[in-house]
């Protein structure tokens, strides 16, 4: 068995190298399919990890109590009740809403400067961070700053609607942008909680309360208690948000994979065609192999290994080109000027999956022609002319 397989692979190798052009075209078919699978899956995983880290930075908390999108109507003192719930480590009230700066919308977060570092991990690039009493100061991320063309010590004007009259803030610090989905959704604009409440005219009220847990695994229990305490509030745990996002991502993954598998199927047809031709050309050889005592499975293995070898080569190059394809997509996104950073995660699982997919396609596509070869009647194959 092993000996036959080794012999079959010797023959497959020579058969492929003898018909170089035909083999190359067939292998190319598989390369296209596998590289599509690998690049789209790498992209999918990259996007997923991007979304996850963004959410971590944006939410910064295990549980978030919301007053609805951009509404600011949770009484601030609620926070003191929440702090007493067992399992809650810290509860931080914030105001998160939308402001217009130079007629463009941005998400602004008002937060107690002392507590900010508990939920948001930021890195300063220039200037300094917010301090207690910095009520006319703003910290921007570098993307927004460069969009607005401002530097430290410059001023920006906030208004609640486009073209409205607003309040002027002084830029005191510039931070590195946090992960996000473009400038409209990411958070890159911080003022103090007092300044925000003052600006939006919502004294003693906040838009959300971020809750940090003692133990991240206690999320469900704490959430249940909070839901009992505030039946009307919108309480989201990070896990819930994640699972919602994951569902969306899985749908996207499925669509991408579906597209990739179409090209893989075309590659499979190529293999089937090549092996069919090989079987047709080598009919006499099959007859001889049977005459010297070869059984069906001997012949089957010989032709199947040709299909497997083609798909293996296609799989290896497909993985390499697939990763190259991810770089290409990154470059493409960058030249389009989109502020989306797609991280490139080379995952060994995806590469293994690419190879397994290639071999599966090869064996499935190669089986029918190999089976035909295995069932060639030697007497007919050997009859000359």
């Amino acid at each position, binding site marked *: 068995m092993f000996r036959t397989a080794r012999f079959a692979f010797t*023959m497959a190798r020579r058969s492929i190298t003898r018909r170089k052009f035909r083999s190359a075209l067939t292998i190319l078919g598989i390369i296209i399919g596998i590289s599509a699978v690998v690049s789209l899956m790498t992209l999918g995983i990259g996007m997923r990890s991007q979304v996850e880290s963004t959410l971590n930075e944006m939410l910064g908390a295990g549980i978030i109590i919301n007053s609805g999108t951009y509404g600011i109507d949770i009484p601030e003192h609620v926070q003191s009740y929440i702090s007493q719930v067992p399992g809650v480590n810290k509860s931080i009230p914030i105001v998160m809403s939308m402001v217009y700066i130079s007629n463009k919308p941005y998400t602004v977060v008002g937060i107690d400067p002392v507590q900010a570092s508990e939920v948001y991990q930021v890195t300063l690039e220039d200037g300094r961070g917010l301090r207690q009493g910095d009520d006319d100061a703003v910290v921007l991320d570098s993307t927004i700053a460069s969009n607005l063309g401002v530097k430290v010590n410059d001023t920006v004007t906030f208004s609640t609607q486009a073209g409205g009259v607003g309040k002027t803030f002084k830029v005191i610090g510039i931070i590195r942008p946090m992960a996000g989905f473009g400038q409209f959704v990411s958070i890159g604009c911080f003022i103090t909680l007092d300044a925000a409440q003052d600006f939006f005219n919502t004294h003693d009220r906040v838009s959300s309360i971020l809750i940090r847990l003692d133990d991240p695994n206690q999320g469900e229990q704490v959430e249940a208690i909070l839901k009992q305490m505030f039946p009307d509030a919108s309480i989201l745990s990070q896990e819930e948000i994640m699972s919602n996002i994951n569902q969306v991502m899985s749908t996207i993954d499925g669509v991408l994979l579906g597209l990739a598998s179409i090209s893989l199927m075309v590659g499979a047809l190529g293999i089937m065609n090549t092996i069919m031709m090989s079987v047709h050309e080598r009919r006499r050889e099959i007859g001889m192999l049977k005459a010297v*005592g070869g*059984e*069906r499975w001997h012949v089957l293995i010989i032709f199947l290994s040709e299909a497997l070898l083609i798909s293996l080569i296609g799989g290896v190059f497909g993985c390499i080109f697939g990763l190259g394809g991810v770089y290409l997509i990154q470059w493409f996104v960058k030249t389009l000027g989109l502020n989306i950073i797609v991280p490139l995660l080379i995952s060994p699982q995806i590469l293994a999956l690419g190879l397994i997919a290639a071999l599966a396609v090869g064996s499935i596509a190669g089986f029918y022609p190999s089976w035909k070869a295995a069932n060639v009647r030697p007497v007919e194959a050997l009859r000359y002319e």
Partner: protein
Amino acid sequence: MSNVVELRDVVKTYDLGDNIKVDALRGINLTIKRGEFVSIMGPSGCGKTTLLNIIGGLDSPTDGQVIIDGIDITHMSEGELARIRREKIGFIFQTFNLVPLLTALENVQIPMIFAGRFSNSEIKERAIELLRLVGLEHRLHHRPTQMSGGEQQRVAIARALANEPSIILADEPTGNVDRETGWKIIRLIKGLNETLGQTCIMVTHDPTIAQISERIIYMLDGQIIPEPPKLTINPSSSMLADERRQMLLAELKWLEASIKGLEVRKNRLNQESYAQVKLGYEKQLERLKKVVQEEYEKRRSK
């Protein structure tokens, strides 16, 4: 157990569909002794190759019984027949049928790889030894395309001997090589038959090559005919007129079929052997005409 091949009333009918049936073999009874060298002769389409395929377990008879080396293979399954082929039979073909992708050494190894009887190192050693036996020790790593027809056929002979078969079946082994090479190959097969004691059954069109065998079996229209209608009939013998006429008719039919077969094969033969065989047939025909003429005159004078 001295009979290595025993065929009893073997019939082979090919069903070509649309109710068209071709009787390739019509009741063959044949026994071949161990170590015998037998030639099968007959015009094209007389069933020689079908007979060889049935002896070799490549084809099953429609009716009758086939016993090879004491084993009844008549009703064997495909897999069992494959085992019989690898263990008992060595095939040599007119067109050599080597795998073009493989070297001489690798081609000889194929039957041993399938059989799984020898270890890897034994297989290689044995293949080298067999190629030495056929005088090709300097061609071990050559591909078929790098070898002459004669050399290719010698590789095929080495391959046929790989699993030490009881029977060597050769279907026109000299059909694709020139006459001189053909003789070398025949002498090689004959020599191996004598030294290794394997039974050889050879199909050939060439009457001179057939002479090397101990026994010649003549076939016509799917049957074995007792004696070739040879021109040894003495017109003046005391044969009955009727009997003589039948003999002459059979002889004429044989010659006609042979000549037809020769014309069919014309392109596959080289000019020299074609001319030689054709000349032989023409001489036979001439003599046959003479015999008929004499017969005719004898009757008229009566």
